[in-house]
């Protein structure tokens, strides 16, 4: 193999370039409008950074308000976009570098909520622990921007840049607490592991690129199957190469070429995919790669821990879903013997077992929550494996699946992705509340995060203890809370797939949820039924953390009670999720919308009938009335802000009134 290729055209012909320039810049403007939430966050991070240069120490609150304003604008833009028909099929922007689809928009809303909540209580925390620094808000916005790039990524380059943008900002936030010896240590541990995993990721991307010659996700999903077709075609020539006697020399040469060209891409692709998988498992902290998690979570300032536990996890799972559920969906790559699902399934089981067993013996609340987040990653990975198995099901040899079976598999895969999204959002809300509570306790450089310091908390601060209890119960998976329905949806999806291994792991997961109850309940019992400490450890001044905790507790319950409505939104996001963006995606979303409309119309009819049986006045107008399309669009959009952690604008106002 040599470089026998012609010169690469670097620039278009001058004559053509002049005409293209104007249309290209116009197109870039249109693309920026489609990306409005992301653009606002990116630009705002710079505005906040510049504003900090002119801020006096007394004006820190202005910084916070300014950041919340920007996040509020971004939420408004994302709410306007999410659920809109235009994005049903996914739009390519910047020549396919990024996509705007319902999936990305839902993740945007989630991460914007997380960022808003973290900004709300981080300022008070930093002030109280005497390490206030002005770059904090800007760093949160940069990390948020990185997560949004991940959600929108349509290219491996975008994916790499998103992960790096997110991680580098978070490394700084972890190590920013200069008056503590733990914070830089946590930052170094996180940094070394993170940088190591980005090295793996980059090498993986290089190998995948080498195997396929493309980096765009939509082209990749096509090219990946070509790699395996070529590989299978080369198998016929392997016999000739292995036993060349009796064949003419020319044929042996040709066979050697065919084998080399057919096998080389697969030989590059499989290690490449595994390296990328390893790197992403590092980022989500799945088991063999989870060592950094408890140390980094414990040493980091609590608001930063909250961002890592909620925001970074959302970003890493968005990347995992994009690549492994959306792009590398080829039977050979998903299923045994070369597939990744069989490995990841058992890693998921190991992740929850290790996370839960380690959490049981923790005496520090932050470490306990860190291990509990590892356990949650295990549950989520079961969902990822289920989704990929549905999409990438390879039929038995000599059997062609019918159209019905095919439709069922894609439908079930969509539901699995929706369950993962639901679980992620429910988990993010609950974990944000829990860390808000952790950050509120303790003052003057001393965090009260040892478990024994929490005993009798309910007597001293009944409201805080109640909020924390609701969040912990949601994490545990108590029925009315969001965490329960998240587990229910994910496990049901996994169980629906007929594979035996998946069913065994679901049983392991259910047993693990019970083990998890031990340490959550122990903390709750200690808050309510133990006598309080003699000495009051004090708490952080300011209302940010209690507001976030209250909002998180309320949302945990709301997500649980309104599980149906919330799941409908996740379903909308996942129906249009699969890469590549195509007409088929939009059609699937249309089908879903039609179903919902029908269901709603039926519910209306039933309600009208019931009203008619009682002394009915309005009964006449209800039956047969078609819900108009506009209302259908507005409903998800209007309800969306309540679907993620904390709505920044309203809370910002509340805080401003206070301060």
């Amino acid at each position, binding site marked *: 193999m040599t470089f026998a290729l012609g010169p690469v055209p670097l620039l278009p012909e001058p004559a053509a370039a002049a005409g293209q320039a104007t249309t290209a810049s116009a197109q870039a403007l249109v693309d920026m409008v489609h990306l409005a939430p992301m653009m606002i966050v990116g630009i705002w991070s710079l505005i906040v950074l510049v504003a900090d240069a002119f801020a006096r120490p007394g004006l820190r609150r202005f910084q916070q308000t300014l950041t919340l304003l920007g996040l509020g604008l971004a939420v408004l833009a994302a709410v306007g976009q999410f659920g809109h028909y235009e994005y049903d099929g996914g739009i390519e922007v910047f020549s396919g570098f990024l996509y705007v689809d319902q999936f990305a928009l839902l993740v945007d809303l989630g991460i914007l909520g997380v960022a808003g909540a973290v900004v709300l209580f981080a300022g008070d925390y930093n002030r109280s622990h005497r390490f206030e620094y002005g770059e904090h808000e800007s760093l949160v916005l940069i990390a948020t921007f990185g997560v949004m790039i991940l959600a929108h990524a349509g290219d491996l380059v975008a994916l790499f840049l998103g992960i790096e943008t997110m991680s*580098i900002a978070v490394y700084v936030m972890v190590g920013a607490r200069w008056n503590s*010896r733990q914070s830089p240590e946590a930052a170094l541990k996180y940094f070394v592991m993170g940088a190591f995993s980005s090295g793996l990721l980059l090498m993986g991307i290089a190998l995948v690129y080498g195997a396929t010659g493309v980096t765009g996700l939509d082209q990749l999903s096509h090219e990946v199957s070509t790699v395996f077709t070529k590989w299978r075609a080369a198998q016929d020539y392997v016999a000739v190469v292995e036993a060349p006697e009796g064949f003419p020399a020319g044929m042996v040469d040709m066979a050697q070429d065919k084998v080399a060209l057919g096998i080389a891409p697969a030989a590059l692709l499989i290690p490449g995919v595994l390296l990328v998988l390893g790197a992403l498992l590092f980022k989500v902290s799945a088991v063999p790669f989870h060592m950094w998690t408890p140390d980094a979570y414990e040493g980091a300032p609590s608001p930063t821990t909250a961002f890592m536990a909620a925001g970074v996890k959302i970003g890493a799972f968005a990347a995992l879903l994009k690549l492994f559920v959306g792009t590398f969906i080829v039977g050979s790559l998903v299923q045994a013997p070369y597939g990744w699902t069989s490995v990841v399934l058992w890693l998921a089981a190991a992740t929850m077992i290790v996370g839960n067993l380690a959490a049981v013996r923790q005496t520090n609340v932050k470490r306990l929550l860190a291990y509990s987040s590892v356990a949650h990653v295990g549950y989520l990975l079961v969902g990822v494996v289920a989704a990929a198995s549905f999409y990438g099901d390879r039929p038995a040899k000599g059997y062609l699946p019918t159209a019905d079976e095919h439709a069922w598999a894609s439908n079930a895969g969509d539901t699995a992705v929706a369950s993962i999204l639901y679980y992620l959002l429910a988990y993010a809300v609950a974990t944000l509340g829990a860390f808000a509570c952790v950050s509120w306790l303790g003052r003057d450089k001393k965090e009260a995060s040892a478990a024994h310091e929490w005993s009798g908390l309910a007597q001293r601060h009944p409201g805080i203890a109640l909020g924390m209890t609701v969040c912990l119960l949601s994490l545990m998976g108590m029925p009315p809370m969001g965490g329960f329905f998240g587990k229910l949806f994910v496990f049901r999806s996994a169980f629906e797939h007929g594979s035996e291994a998946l069913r065994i792991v679901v049983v392991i997961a259910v047993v693990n949820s019970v083990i998890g109850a031990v340490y959550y309940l122990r903390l709750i019992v200690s808050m309510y039924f133990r006598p309080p400490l003699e000495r009051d450890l004090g708490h952080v001044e300011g209302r940010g953390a209690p507001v976030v905790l209250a909002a998180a507790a309320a949302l945990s319950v709301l997500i649980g009670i309104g599980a149906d409505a919330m799941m409908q939104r996740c379903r909308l996001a996942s129906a249009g999720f699969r890469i590549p963006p195509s007409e088929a995606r939009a059609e699937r979303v249309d089908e879903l919308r039609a179903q919902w409309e029908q269901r709603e119309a039926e519910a209306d009819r039933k309600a009208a009938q019931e009203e008619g049986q009682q002394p009915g006045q309005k009964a006449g107008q209800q039956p047969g009335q078609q819900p108009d399309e506009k209302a259908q669009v507005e409903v998800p959009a209007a309800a969306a802000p309540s679907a993620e952690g904390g709505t920044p604008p309203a809370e910002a106002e509340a805080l401003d009134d206070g301060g």
Partner: protein
Amino acid sequence: MVPITHFLYLASTLFVIGLLGVMLRRNVLIVLMSVELMLNGANIALVAFSRFHGNLDGQVLAMFTIAVAAAEAAVGLAIVVSIFRSRTGSDIDDLSLLRD
């Protein structure tokens, strides 16, 4: 003409040296340098593949990686400096405040 395999040998050698360096060496600065080696090994592979496939995607990613590696090195060294302020020595095993 140098065949692509030679570039890949170089790239994978650099990558593996970096990988082993991160896992085996205990000095923080050497660990940081090893991470850089990993990234640069991947860069060489990207550029070689880019030339081989005749498109520029790999080279673009390599350019981005150089910028990202610089940012990462800046943050990493800043963290190391902030650790040196409170203790002496640069052995990664001495970092044992946070543990189970």
